[in-house]
């Protein structure tokens, strides 16, 4: 059997040969660690993005003109420039702002994807707020709901139906975009894969496994988004 394997050319040579797979699985811990860093950056980044998105989304639907303008500028700037340059900016600007302080690369990643996706989430939140007519709140209040009660039972459930599907899609994009950390040696999954592949030239198997890991992280969320979308349409 082993002899047979040794005689089949593409199993022994070429980008997807067996020895390359063996080398990869001997070092698979590198990819696990990378995946953990990716998950960490993604969850912290998502928390930051949600906070910024809610803040700027509420600001852009306020009556205060300065708040609206500020929010508009944030959203337009971040949506129209590449994430990569924003990360480079943070990477170079932070050490100047905080001289002598040690700034972990992970923090740059969290700030980068958090602020970038915060701009997209702000638009989602704004759309959610605008989707609910002013009459809804007035109707609820007139029926004896308190403000909090009206929000809790009338406004937020309706807004959630509008907001949740695009929000879930943003979470998927955010996970994928943490891969930008690879460019600044951030130790995430893409970096770990690329570093390993580059060191020994085992690009084929490594990228397949890296892709599989990203897929496993993103696909369930993407499915959830689809389900929420069709549920929102039915209602």
């Amino acid at each position, binding site marked *: 059997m082993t002899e047979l394997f040794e005689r089949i050319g593409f199993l022994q040579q070429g980008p997807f040969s067996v020895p390359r797979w063996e080398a990869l699985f001997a070092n698979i811990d590198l990819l696990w660690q990378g995946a953990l860093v990716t998950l960490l950056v993604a969850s912290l980044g998502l928390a930051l993005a949600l906070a910024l998105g809610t803040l700027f989304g509420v600001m852009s639907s306020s009556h205060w003109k300065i708040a609206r303008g500020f929010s508009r500028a944030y959203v337009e700037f971040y949506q129209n420039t590449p994430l990569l340059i924003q990360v480079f900016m943070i990477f170079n600007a932070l050490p100047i702002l905080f001289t002598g302080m040690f700034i972990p690369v992970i923090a740059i990643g969290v700030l980068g994807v958090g602020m970038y996706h915060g701009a997209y989430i702000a638009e989602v939140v704004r759309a959610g707020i605008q989707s609910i007519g002013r009459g809804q709140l007035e109707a609820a209040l007139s029926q004896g709901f308190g403000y909090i009660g009206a929000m809790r039972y009338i406004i937020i459930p309706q807004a959630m139906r509008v907001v949740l599907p695009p929000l879930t899609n943003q979470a998927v994009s955010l996970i994928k975009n943490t891969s930008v950390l690879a460019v600044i040696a951030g130790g995430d999954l893409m970096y770990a894969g690329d570093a390993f592949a580059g060191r020994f030239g085992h690009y084929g198997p490594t990228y397949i496994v890296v*892709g599989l890991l990203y897929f496993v992280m993103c696909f369930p969320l993407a499915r959830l988004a689809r389900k929420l979308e069709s549920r929102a349409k039915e209602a």
Partner: protein
Amino acid sequence: MDAFLNSPVAEMLSDPVLYIGLGNGLLLTLEVAAISIVLSSLFGTVIGAMRYSGFPVISQVATTYIEVIRNLPQILLILVSYFVLGLPGKWAAVIGLTIYTTAIIAEVIRGGLNSVPVGQWEAARSQGFSFLQSMWYIVLPPAVVKMIPPIVSQFVTVIKDSSFAMVIGAGELMFKGQILAGKYWRPSQIITIYVIISLTYFAINFAISTVARRLQKKLSVGRGSIGN
């Protein structure tokens, strides 16, 4: 004022190499993005139509492609095109961007077609329209209005994501910026380079987004009730 004129930033800004480098980078960025946009619009339409068709194997192939590619990072696809497919830098960037964007555009096309109620089809067919006529006169006009905003925002994404081609040294705007940052290494100079690059991307993408918003408003006049 004198202090500024003698500063490292002013020295850098008076060097034509800066503008030649960034200009060449910008040209390549636009070229890569334009080719990717054209290719992925073509392939995206085909794959979106395949999925919309509902024919057993054809539709499943399209669905699998879309679902797999949509859940992979753009950088990974560019790296695969470069290292595994062995394409030269510029084409690796084009193919990597095209593989990804095709999946996104296919979904937009399908979503747009799906947004037109089946009743519209049935009404058109019952009035003697052929399949192609119903598509062209009845289904496509409202569907296209729905597709414009997501497709244009995807084009903007392509221009932004073409910066990932920096990792394979494709010589586009970001990469040129990095090279220049090696020559003008002082923090104030590096930040200035990045500000210039940011503003360049911003000017292009903001212009595209604004035109698209106007276009959509213009097209959707009088279509308020359909697929809205």
